[in-house]
């Protein structure tokens, strides 16, 4: 069953979930999840569709309020924090489907990413984004909806990073992207990690996520069925059954 490992690092606890339950009417998407993420740590959550992974991220982002259990960000209960203030606690989300503002320009999307900031170095940070992703710089005044899927993913990550988060959460960052673009996205995530930002990654592409993560959890039907280092999980017999078993059964049925 669930094995939340106690890996208290010098950076301290960043996120702590205790007995988290999320219900949508009669359906319980998350049914009792415990998870702790330390500063600088990268955690991957893998599992089939409908396992409750997106609900979990939405709850930490403040979009969905849990039906039971607790969420703490750096020790502070999330329950009393308004949705628009969660980012001010250092939590940024790149949601599934990216949710860039398609009718706004690339530049405007990036400026919105820096909404919580009052410091003067925002435009320097945006210039750095353009240096790292020249294509975004070339298209800074074009509607972001005209970017390709991969470019939109880069924009969504850059936008989230402009809030200077302590925790960056990504929901299916490889979804719908060509393999070489996925390589690029994961290169960026590695760079972000090396800056000391914690990552919480939801992926169906387990191999990609495991290559990056310090720890991984397998989620199925609203609970963590396995937790450990990626190597431990890949060795585990239950992993195939819990994850690939379901995925293969689906592929067979399709």
């Amino acid at each position, binding site marked *: 069953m669930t094995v939340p490992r106690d890996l208290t690092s010098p950076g301290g606890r960043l996120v702590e979930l205790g007995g988290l339950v999320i219900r949508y009417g009669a359906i319980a998407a998350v049914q009792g999840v415990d998870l702790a993420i330390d500063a600088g740590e990268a955690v991957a959550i893998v599992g089939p569709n409908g396992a409750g992974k997106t609900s979990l991220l939405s709850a930490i*982002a*403040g*979009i969905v309020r849990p039906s039971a259990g607790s969420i703490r960000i750096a020790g502070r209960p999330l329950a009393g924090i*308004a*949705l*628009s*203030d*969660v*980012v*001010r606690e250092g939590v940024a*989300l790149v*949601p*599934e*489907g990216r*949710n860039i*503002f*398609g*009718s*706004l320009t690339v530049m*405007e999307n990036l*400026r*919105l*990413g820096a*909404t*919580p900031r009052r410091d003067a170095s925002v435009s320097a940070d945006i210039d750095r984004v353009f240096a790292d992703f020249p294509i975004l710089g070339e298209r800074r005044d074009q*509607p972001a*909806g005209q970017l390709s899927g991969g470019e939109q993913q880069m924009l969504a990550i850059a*936008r989230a990073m402009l*809030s200077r988060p302590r925790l960056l959460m990504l929901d299916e960052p490889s979804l719908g992207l060509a393999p070489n673009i996925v390589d690029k996205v994961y290169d960026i995530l590695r760079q972000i990690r090396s800056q000391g930002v914690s990552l919480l990654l939801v992926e169906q592409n387990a191999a990609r996520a495991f290559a990056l993560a310090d720890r991984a959890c397998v989620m199925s039907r609203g609970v963590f069925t396995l937790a450990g280092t990626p190597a431990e999980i890949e060795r585990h017999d239950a992993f195939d059954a819990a994850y690939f078993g379901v995925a293969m059964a689906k592929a067979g049925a399709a």
Partner: protein
Amino acid sequence: MIGQAVQVLVDAVSVGGLYALTALGIGLIFGVMRLINFAHAQLIMIAGYAVLLFFAQSAVLAVLGAVAGAVLLALVVERMAFRPLRGADPATLLIASFAVSFLIEKMMIMLVGSRPKGVDFLPMLAGQVEIAGVRLQLLQLVTILVSVVLLVATTWFLKSTRLGLEMRAAAENFRMAEVLGIRANRVIASAFAISGLLAAAVACLFVAQTGLVQPRMGLQLVIIAFVGTVIGGLGSLPGAAFGGFLVGVATILLEALLPPELRVFREAFLFVGVAVVLIFRPQGLIPARGLAGRI
């Protein structure tokens, strides 16, 4: 003959401008909240009564009173009626806006009675000017000028200010805007304040044109302007302004061009036109982008 055509055209454009301003006010609120605010009519009405209250002292005071009254009422309505319904489905919001609209109208009837009151507002604009041999109403030219200035100013505000950027982001994907740290209350209250400002401008021009104030004023404007936002493309601000303008122009042109015995049916012709537009472009003439895929 050409002079007459120009006169009709100027009349049409000035009425189109009024409808465009009304539609923009409605479209702004729909954009950020998915609320079709029929109480926009009462913003126009309250501004009309502010004009009635102050026009004898000075025109400037009347305009300022109209702006203050409409903006204040817009903020009160947002705070008391719509904020508790934040996130409710559009049907609930629509019905709530009807309730607010009726409530304010009936309260006004209780307070001041339902009889129209005459207002001789801006009499100096009642005269005519002759431009290149064509006699035109000064008030119509002023209406066109004010409409253009306000449309340009609103566009500038939305495009070039931080708050405008936040409003556009919220209009496209409110949830994501909040995730990025944009405060919903600030954005929505600002949208209501601007819609109040636009309603006040419409009220001043409308009162100057008709010379009347009554508790039911504004409703006809809002219904026709709402039709304009629909054919322009719900959720798109350029669409709302353009659709409102188009409907206003069409109303006047129908009145001028239809044979006299058919003129009473001009609204029927207008709605046939609207139906035809919607059959061929159900998404509107300038549809909103990026409304799909909201988190």
